[in-house]
């Protein structure tokens, strides 16, 4: 069982000093995430979900407890070692995409591998092309990031998170800037990636979006208060088709009214 777990948190806590007060952002969090999971991390703002994501992403270090990532105890690592962990084991997807402007999709996706001298130029190009194919942008590799739609930009960002073969992809409100239809498209892509064996941690506050994942955990005031598997997982693909049908119907109705 244990060899399957990618992430293991043991009574993890995180405190911030704000002025003279100490804010307890996370209290006694115990969590195991196994390979192949698609987990939604939910909670209101201030519940500690972003703090957890930062710690999971090795951007921040816990105050207490243990964090094991793919067999490594992250607590003991230094700043540069954390950077290497991020480079080789984690893929990030952000709400606002964070692509380099005026740069092609391909170059954006290559970026994480540029920080890994073990990857040759040829391999880097190959991996980036594969990642872009995996997100359905094979025909847009040379397009500049700022000339793409929001959905396409987020696909490029997902490709970038895939390119280093991470053990987990961490997405922070990855559909927050997108309309419903595009959100469903992106969720459909995540579901597809997950079916191919990629582990995904997905921070969101929208229950609709969380319904597409396999497991929901909920935070309140820094505590993990709910952790349950999703019984009837919605298919984003089906939701997307329904949405399209509704749109068609709406159009027909409007036409009928007009007539």
């Amino acid at each position, binding site marked *: 069982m244990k060899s399957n777990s990618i992430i293991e948190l043991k009574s993890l806590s995180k405190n911030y000093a704000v002025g003279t007060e100490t804010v307890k952002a996370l209290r006694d969090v115990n969590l195991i995430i196994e390979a192949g999971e698609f987990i939604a991390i939910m909670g209101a703002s201030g519940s500690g979900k972003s703090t957890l994501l930062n710690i999971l992403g090795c951007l921040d270090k816990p105050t207490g407890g243990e964090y094991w990532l793919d067999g490594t105890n992250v607590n003991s690592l230094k700043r540069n070692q954390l950077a290497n962990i*991020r480079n080789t084991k984690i893929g*990030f997807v952000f709400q606002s995409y964070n692509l380099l402007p005026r740069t092609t999709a391909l170059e954006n996706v290559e970026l994480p591998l540029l920080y890994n001298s073990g990857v040759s130029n040829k391999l880097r190009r190959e991996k980036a092309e594969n990642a872009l194919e995996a997100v359905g942008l094979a025909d847009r590799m040379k397009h500049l990031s700022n000339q793409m739609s929001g959905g396409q930009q987020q696909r490029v960002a997902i490709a970038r998170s895939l390119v280093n073969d991470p053990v987990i992809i961490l997405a922070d409100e990855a559909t927050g800037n997108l309309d419903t239809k595009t959100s469903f498209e992106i969720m459909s892509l995540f579901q597809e990636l997950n079916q191919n064996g990629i582990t995904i941690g997905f921070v969101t506050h929208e229950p609709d979006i969380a319904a597409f994942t396999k497991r929901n955990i909920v935070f309140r005031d820094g505590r993990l208060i709910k952790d349950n598997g999703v019984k009837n997982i919605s298919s984003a693909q089906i939701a997307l088709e329904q949405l399209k049908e509704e749109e068609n119907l709406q159009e027909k109705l409007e036409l009928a009214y007009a007539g």
Partner: protein
Amino acid sequence: MVGRHSQISKLLINQVDKMNTLNLIKVAISAIKRNKTRSFLTMLGIIIGVASVISMLAIGEGSNASIKEQISTMGTNLIHIQPASRSRGGVQQGREMSQTLEVQDADFIRENCDKIKAVSPEVDGSGQVIFGSNNWPTQIISGNEEYTYIKKYDVASGRIYNSQEIKSAAKVCLLGQTVVDNLFEDGVNPIGQTVRFNKIPFKVIGVLAEKGDNTFGQDQDDIILAPYTTVMKRITRQTYLRAIVMSAVSEDEIDTASAQIEGAMRISHKLKDTDENDFEIRTQQELMSTFGSISEMMLVLLGSISAISLIVGGIGIMNIMYVSVTERTREIGLRLAIGGKGNDILMQFLIEAILLSVIGGIIGVGLGIFASNTVENIMGWPILITSDAILLSFLFCSFIGVFFGWYPAKKASALDPIEALRHE
């Protein structure tokens, strides 16, 4: 199980510990390309700085070299004795009034100074030279048969007067090119003609080769050369000399030679130990070093003015890089999040700054060479572009890149990835 895993991870971590420098340069280049206009504006300061250093130094070095060259056309081992200005009964007298140099002083030097190769008395006067219906105001200078050797005049055609003509104060002369041009129609051979200088007829026996202007802008071809005996007897009607000119045996012996001359002159003038010299010895090298130091001062002045513009250019780079760090905070956050280390970010921004200043430097060198050549063509100033100047400004650029790029780069590398990603 966990233990083995962690060993493998450690191995992996070590492998990617250092980002390839080549990759960093790539990252920096693409960042520069992404902001073409800004990159160009950043470089502009350096471009102008380097171009002005190159052209200022080219002009400075050029005039320096041309002054030295012109002085050396007057003969580098030339030594000159002039009467000293002195006061008689409280009245300061100019050099022209002192009548201390005589022909026998020249003879005495010739006999007693072995470091002197050639000696000639020098007398001059001015007046109007007439040939046919043409006339021209000019200067007559005179010496013995060694005079042309000492003062580096060449005879273009005809001959120099001989010792017989000197002894007999013959009315013969050689003409400078300017005088020839102003007196004779094209195609007329001046040699064998008779010209009148202050009403005294001179037979032209030679024409001097063209020498051009000297350092002071005087036309060295606007002269008539005649035996000193002739000039003293028939034109100035004086027994004293304006100067004695000499050539030392070599440039290295000039100091010894002038010491010998001083000794000889004091004996010749029967000066007591307590008497001051009633003459002055000037060497061409003194003149050269005086002018050299003036033009070097100019060079330093020009150089430092343009160095200031380079520094201002460097501050421009720092300024833009600093703004760029703030503006690109999210980009830096992203780079940190996907595995860039603080050092990678530092190096990226530093390399960007260095690239900007070095590329600016290359363009600046090109522009500076172009500007110098334009100045030479339009203004006719002598220029000299030395490889030292190019190397110097180039090194200075790289230094500026590192120096002014460091602070913004350090600031970028110290950013917290979480804060940086949250930056709006």
